[in-house]
């Protein structure tokens, strides 16, 4: 029985490796799914851009459970994918164990931190991008009250909220910031109904601009704001097109660029820590035809000035995760 199992297992591995050409890159999406219109989708767009430009092919996997993370990484590494890009901090601990077993395979992790010679750690300065959209929120707000809807209450989302609050206060020191988290389980990333309810509750408290950093939940926030004629701010991908004229802007987190660069570098991927900040275009805010009317020249000038100062280091935005505290907001 066991020998049969072994043979079957071996054929399975053979079949897998036969199906992939040598050194195709791979991308692994975190729980939440490829089409979350936000974080994972941005990674998918980067991979697609690489595929259309180079005509290459890549493998992709979507996680469905925690125990699969290690399984997926090992199977991809064993089937010859290189480099392997994964999205989400939840991979950190798993990659720490897997990476040393495959020294010839390059890994790249977005949002996580892994110290290994064959791993590229890609971190984003979300607080800087959030600061900019916070400034825009404060300038667009007529009531002096702005909202923030986060996904799960985790440090990463507090980092978004903290940068946003600092941006708001930089423009209007008296502004009220209402911050809510959607929940404490992973379901909080994909609960547009609750997102909409939170947005409505914030609007009833006077908020007229709401920033959603909540994955798929944000869709509900944007919808609720559009329904009541208020403004919203999207996140990660450019979400301006979802409700033209109602989405003030989107805080861009260029996960697509990170994936695209990693795929382009291929097996020559440089490892180590890469910080995608404002200066390197890793984060930013989106202006397109859908929100051009909402963003005034004055707003744009102020934000661009701040962006320049942040990029040059003249202005520092406090990073919540550096010391687990926020000067502008209490959680």
């Amino acid at each position, binding site marked *: 029985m066991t020998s049969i199992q*072994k043979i079957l297992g071996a054929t399975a591995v053979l079949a897998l490796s036969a199906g992939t050409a040598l050194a195709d890159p791979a991308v692994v999406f975190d729980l939440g799914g490829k089409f979350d219109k936000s974080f994972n989708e941005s990674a998918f767009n980067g991979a697609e851009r690489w595929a259309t430009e180079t005509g290459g092919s890549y493998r992709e996997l*979507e996680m469905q459970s925690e125990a699969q993370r290690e399984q997926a990484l090992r199977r991809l590494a064993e089937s010859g994918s290189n480099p392997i890009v994964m999205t989400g901090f939840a991979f950190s601990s798993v990659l720490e164990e897997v990476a040393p077993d495959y020294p010839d395979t390059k890994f790249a992790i977005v949002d996580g931190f892994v110290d290994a010679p064959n791993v590229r750690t890609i971190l984003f300065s979300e607080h800087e991008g959030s600061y900019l959209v916070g400034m825009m929120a404060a300038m667009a707000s007529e009531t002096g009250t702005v909202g923030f809807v986060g996904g799960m209450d*985790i440090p990463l989302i507090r980092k978004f909220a903290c940068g946003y609050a600092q941006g708001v206060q930089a423009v209007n020191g008296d502004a009220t910031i209402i911050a809510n988290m959607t929940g404490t389980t992973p379901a909080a990333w994909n609960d547009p109904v609750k997102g909409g309810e939170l947005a409505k509750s914030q609007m009833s408290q006077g908020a007229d601009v709401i920033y959603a950093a909540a994955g798929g939940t944000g869709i509900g926030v944007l919808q609720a704001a559009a329904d009541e004629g208020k403004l919203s701010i999207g996140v990660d991908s450019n979400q301006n097109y979802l409700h033209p004229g109602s989405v003030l802007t989107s805080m861009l987190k260029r996960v697509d660029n990170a994936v695209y660069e990693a795929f382009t570098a291929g097996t020559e991927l440089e490892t180590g820590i890469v910080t995608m900040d404002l200066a390197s275009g890793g984060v930013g805010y989106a202006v397109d035809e859908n929100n051009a009317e909402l963003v005034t020249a004055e707003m744009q000038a102020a934000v661009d000035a701040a962006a320049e100062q942040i990029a040059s280091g003249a202005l520092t935005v406090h990073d919540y995760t550096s010391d687990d505290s926020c000067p502008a907001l209490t959680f």
Partner: protein
Amino acid sequence: MDRLPPWVDVVLIPIISLILAFLISGLVIIGIKEDPVEAMRTMVQGALGSSYGWGYTLYYATNFMFTGLAVSVAFRASLFNIGGEGQAMMGGLGVALACLFIPWPHWSFALVGATLSGAAFGALWAAIPAYLQAKKGSHIVITTIMFNFIAASVLNYVLVNQLRPQGSMDPASGRFPDTVALPNLGDILGLVGIPFSRSTPANITLFVALIACVAVWLLIFRSRLGYQIRAFGKSEPATVYAGISPVKITMLTMLISGGLAGMMAINNVMGEAERLVLNAVEGAGFIGIAVALMGRNHPFGVFIAALLFGFLYQGGAELGLWTSIPIELRIVVQALVILFTGALDNMVRMGVEAIYTRFRKAPPEVIKAAEAAE
């Protein structure tokens, strides 16, 4: 109506139900324009075709054994404990605290300690709804499911604000020390000369789960308390008349049930992740309800049903990972299995009974043989 022999009842009928469930799943797969044979092959190959697949199947099955036993013990007392999810989360916290803050000299001590700690946390979490049910009459279905959400929030608070290492983005505890790492199934089977993949999460907890199955069987069918639990489940007024305290039975049953759910954490938290993550339980508490339902609340039935659901979980994951068939199909198959083995059980049973009675009437010597066997 004639009584069916036990083998028809416990073997034949579930198998027919399963075949029906898989046939309909096949129709669904054809409906989405995929190949059902290919899908089945991927599932069987992925879950049972290699020691690697078996490792994952057994890992998931171990989780479901604990939660299935937890639900079935409570069911025996007519208590519907749907809080297995929350109890397993709190069990995870108990296991994590035991592993992080007590310097264990060897994994075997740690296993015992963490098991007790996990069980205690799970039991404690079940004790509050149990008390509310026994003393205040708050319905246990409502309270246990609400306690799932409270457990999620407690865990979130503890992980984000207390156990998370400074500077870490991940809402998870630090890694447990290497001394508490449990031997995995590959190591154990390697000792007796059976080659088994070492890169799977299946670990020694599988044997703890098997022991738990036997212990629950002894408890329910061979002990005084088990008799009281079953009697209470059949008729509360009769147990009161017999001098058994409903408060005591409700409390004890739920403590045992919660403890079993909490023990699941030694598999997923201590055995697999070796740290406490927010999403550790992943719905196993709810799968436990289906497992108990399908296993007829009998420990052996729970064991078989847990294996089946472990197969569905791992096989379904392989579908999602390596084919274009969406992972949601796994949920369709699960739902059909539950529907046929649980809800529509009598439909198959009546059919089988009709055929069996006709068969009995035909050859009298078969009846004689059957009677002699009884």
